[in-house]
């Protein structure tokens, strides 16, 4: 085994770190505390460097950053706590359109996505279908040259700042659920679309989106009619490694260490000198190293052109579950002050311990719940019988 990154990836790491130092200011990080998990300025700066396009595979006409360079970038951005959800979506959708989209979509959307001007949101989940995503019921019906869409999506995160939604619809009710789906990229300013905020326990805001006789032309369809599952698979394929989620804990650990070094417990002991605290910190640091092993492995597999599945599932499961545990430990170990809300003057490290505790639970839910992930591991890696 060889764990070293090639020199160009190490050089790129240095470049990304310098970029983070310059552009990931406290204001950028705290801007997401308003609820919108995207920061346009930061996103555009990444785009200006050519890194969004760079992440698109070169066989699709992208800028040809290697899988290992991408892994390095995603790692560094996560370690620093940068807002990268929008970046992930842009890269995924651009890649899917370039692979499977028509010329209209390639020309009208991809350049704007890769220059950081526009965003797409994901419209998969519905009020009655989440884990069972193929059970989507939002209807698209052909009417002459146009499609008429009716239905509702839930958790259309970033739709309120995006120009488009990658929309999963049902076009055929007579066939098994996976075979009657069709995808569209729908401009969100089309009449008949309503976006309502969904506020969450975490700081982030999501949306419910409503589609009432929304009419769009066939040029907005991506993939075949009833062939939507292929698009879903392609989106998942490009999401691997790009979507982040491998390193949620380091910003929390850093924040806690800052706090623990300068604060005393009621009995006068500096928090960081408590052996129980120290053991837990080491356990958290070990978990991060484990995440690193998983993340480097998926990067390696991607660099070999291997379509990995279960390896990504294990990464996601381990990273999110351990993060949730860490968020509980560190708020506890700050004592009652740990409860003070994000932005509260007296809150330890600005309330980050509170913020992480409220944010962590979503990481084991979105992007495939831990339960679904365990199903995939049991079936895919251990060969246990499928139960659904």
């Amino acid at each position: 085994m060889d764990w070293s990154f090639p020199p160009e990836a190490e050089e790129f790491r240095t470049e990304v770190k310098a970029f983070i130092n310059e552009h990931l200011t406290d204001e950028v990080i705290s801007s997401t505390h308003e609820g919108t998990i995207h920061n346009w300025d930061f996103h555009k700066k990444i785009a200006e460097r050519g890194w969004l396009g760079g992440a698109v595979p070169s066989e699709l006409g992208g800028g040809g950053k290697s899988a290992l360079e991408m892994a390095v970038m995603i790692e560094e951005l996560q370690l620093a706590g940068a807002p990268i959800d929008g970046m992930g979506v842009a890269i995924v959708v651009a890649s899917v359109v370039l692979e499977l989209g028509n010329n209209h979509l390639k020309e009208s959307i991809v350049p704007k996505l890769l220059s950081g001007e526009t965003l797409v949101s994901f419209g998969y989940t519905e009020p009655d279908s989440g884990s069972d995503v193929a059970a989507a019921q939002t209807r698209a019906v052909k009417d002459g040259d146009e499609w008429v869409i009716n239905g509702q999506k839930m958790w259309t995160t970033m739709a309120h700042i995006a120009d488009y939604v990658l929309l999963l619809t049902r076009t055929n009710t007579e066939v098994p659920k996976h075979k009657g789906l069709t995808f569209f990229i729908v401009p969100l300013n089309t009449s008949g679309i309503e976006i309502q905020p969904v506020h969450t326990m975490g700081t982030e805001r999501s949306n419910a989106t409503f589609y009432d006789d929304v009419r769009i032309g066939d040029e907005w369809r991506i993939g075949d009619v009833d062939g939507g599952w292929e698009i879903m698979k392609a989106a998942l394929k490009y999401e691997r490694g790009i979507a982040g989620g491998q390193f949620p804990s380091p910003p929390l650990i850093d924040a806690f260490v800052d706090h623990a070094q300068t604060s005393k417990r009621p009995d006068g002991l500096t928090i960081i000198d408590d052996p129980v605290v120290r053991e837990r910190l080491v356990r958290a640091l070990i978990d991060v190293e484990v995440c690193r092993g998983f993340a480097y492995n998926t990067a390696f597999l991607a660099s070999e052109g291997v379509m990995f599945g279960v390896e990504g599932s294990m990464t996601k499961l381990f990273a999110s579950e351990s993060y949730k545990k860490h968020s509980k430990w560190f708020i506890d170990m700050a004592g009652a002050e740990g409860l003070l809300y994000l932005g509260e003057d007296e809150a330890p490290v600005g309330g980050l311990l509170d913020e992480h505790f409220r944010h962590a639970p979503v990481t084991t839910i979105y992007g495939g719940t831990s339960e679904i992930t365990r199903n995939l591991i049991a079936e895919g890696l251990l060969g246990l019988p499928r139960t659904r």
Partner: protein
Amino acid sequence: MYLRLNSDESAIKDIFHSFFESECSIERVRLSQHAGFDTRAWERLIETGAPGMCLPEQIGGGGAPLTTGAIVADLVGEFIAPLPFIEHLVASRLLASLAPDHDLIPALISGENIISLTLQPTKDDHAKLVPAGTIADAVIACKGNDLVLASGKDTASLLRNTADLPLAHRTLNGAETIASGNEAMESFSRARSEWQALMAVALTGLGRKAVDIGVSYAKERYQFGVLIGSFQGLQHGFASTITGVEGSHFLSNRAVSALENDSDLGDKLAGMAFLFASEAALNASATSLQYHGGYGFAEEYDIQLFYRRAKGWPLQLGDPGVEYQRIANLCLPSGKVA
């Protein structure tokens, strides 16, 4: 970056896999249960060159990197082999690094003589609970600021233990000093890290096999008219468990590579991998044992052997809580005077 075995490494793995299949089958492991050592298997291991594989070529060793030793260590774990491969490898490298011309070296390279090291603090001339203590012809121990070598098999008697390990107290009476001061402490600490990293790899092999045993059982056993492996409760338990084992695979191999490359991270990663692998392996064995139901508790079923080794191998180093504190001191600051 290449995170699989390369073709040379795969070939080595295949050779040793055949070796362990024939010399450390579970029947053989059970036969040597009381001694914790299989003399015949060690004699055959000598024929493969494994005992001296990771010693420098200049002194007659195999010249293989530590990463090759890790391939064998993984199999030691998978087969819960009653062979002191890791202790011997680490202790002989330690001696070779300090005293390459020592008389004992040729017999250690061949494997005719077995050497081990103490992992517990020594007191006066007593080395307690020495790994491979019943079989080692020589033992390296830390004594104050000295490293000493006690050669010659003494009449150490086996101490029965949780994990069927060949543990014994040894005397350091008459031991020769092989290094002192900083050099001694640094070399010993390096050997200890190598032991931790290779043990982490072995525990990973053990954990993977333990899950495999449990999953196989779940594909055979029916209750309520269905295979127990179809119950989601079991599936999820197995899935979480194998995720821990795979995590320990990557971390422990990264630790071995870091030591091999003399990276600054070697010591820290070895300790981290050791702690993580210890928990992952025990969790794997305990989970699979649980999913055997009552049979898992029966001596006749193999999973109990894995459960006991998963605890016994790492605990030879002492309370993991102490190790957590050591790693904390390596990576964490202490309180500022506020």
